[in-house]
């Protein structure tokens, strides 16, 4: 809902979520998959802080790509 309100005013917003299917049911547009609900942009099980940062960097780079890419509204009925 937050994403849609922001997009409504013309600002692209990318949603980082560990539950992309849930986001799609609500008709979210730009979605990037996060690691886990408890740590969307990190991984406490990563072997080192550097590895964790690399994971985070990768997700944020995908976010930048999503923000700079034109997206079509997904009008498929996902309620079932």
């Amino acid at each position, binding site marked *: *809902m*937050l*994403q*849609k*309100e*922001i*997009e*409504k*005013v*013309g*600002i*692209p*917003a*990318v*949603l*980082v*979520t*560990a*539950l992309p299917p849930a*986001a799609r*049911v*609500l*008709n979210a*547009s*730009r979605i990037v998959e*996060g690691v886990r*609900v*408890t*740590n*969307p*942009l*990190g991984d*406490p099980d990563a072997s080192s802080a550097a590895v964790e*940062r690399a994971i*985070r*960097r990768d*997700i*944020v780079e995908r*976010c*930048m790509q999503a*923000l*700079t*890419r*034109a*997206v*079509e*509204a*997904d*009008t498929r009925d996902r*309620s079932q």
Partner: protein
Amino acid sequence: MKMLRVVHYVNQFFGGVGGEEKAGIGPSLVDGPVGPGLLIQRVLEGQGMVVATLICGDNYFADHPESAGDEVLLLLQEREFDLFLAGPAFNAGRYGMACGEVCAQVQDRLHLPVVTGMFAENPGVELYRKSVLIVETGGSAIDMGKSVPKMVALGRKLCNGHQVTRPADEGCFPRGVAASVLSDKLAAERAVSLVLRKMRGDSYETEIPPPDQLDVVPPAPPIESLGDATIALVTEGGLVPVDNPDRLESSRATRYASYEVAALEARGSEGFQSVHRGFDTSYINQDPNRLLPVDVVREMEGKRVFGRLYPRYFVTTGVATSLTNATKIGKGIAEELLGGGVSGVILTAT
């Protein structure tokens, strides 16, 4: 059993007063049943009667929304009755709205059971189904013979003290109210059973339908020049300064807050914690970058991947947030982002 006294509301047409040319007439109360009221009386089979009929022009209600309700109540106060039935209005929009409004007023001000009937596409359904029980009818008066008995049956049950838990069981439109019902199976058993049915391709019925007013928002155009762009961070992960100065709720949020990114960078997990009660927040509390990727985003800002990081981040708590509040919160944040010249947002969900 006591005789059930019904007052019935009809418009100028069903009241036999006239057609469109009489749509402007004000409310009047006549003794006994009129038009469809005769069918109501027949269906009551001697156990009740239509003591009076309220007739009002469809336009009158539309044109005098404030005073029409008052006038109707004034007339009704002259009578003692147990049940109020309106219509059925089928697909007639103004009639449906009038039925809905009159029923709502009688229910609220006279505290009596009310029932009306409409076709699914009648605008009165969306406006009134949450406050008034509306029996679903066919699209025209051809359905009169089926609709009226349903309305009467429900009316009688209500007069006997019946509590409606599932409007669909009574042939009514859903009210959008969740009523607790005791089941003999644990939720986990029901959920697994539902998944298995879905996977097998069997028919299934969801216990919680998704809201039916989910709009599809056309996505915003992409950022044209990332190098000049202002990026803002937003989250519903509830990350706030440890003293929660703005008292952000831990669930059922009604508002949002914003804090300086610089403060988050400076104080980190010692200064900021998540108040979100919907998941284990310990990993985020250990390292808030796992929620708001400030370290990486700053690094990218330094390398001029994009223009600048908006100095504040926006936060709310996304657990058990009502759709209405989520929308309100979203609009508030969107407005501030717009005012701040933000070009793009990274929104972290939890």
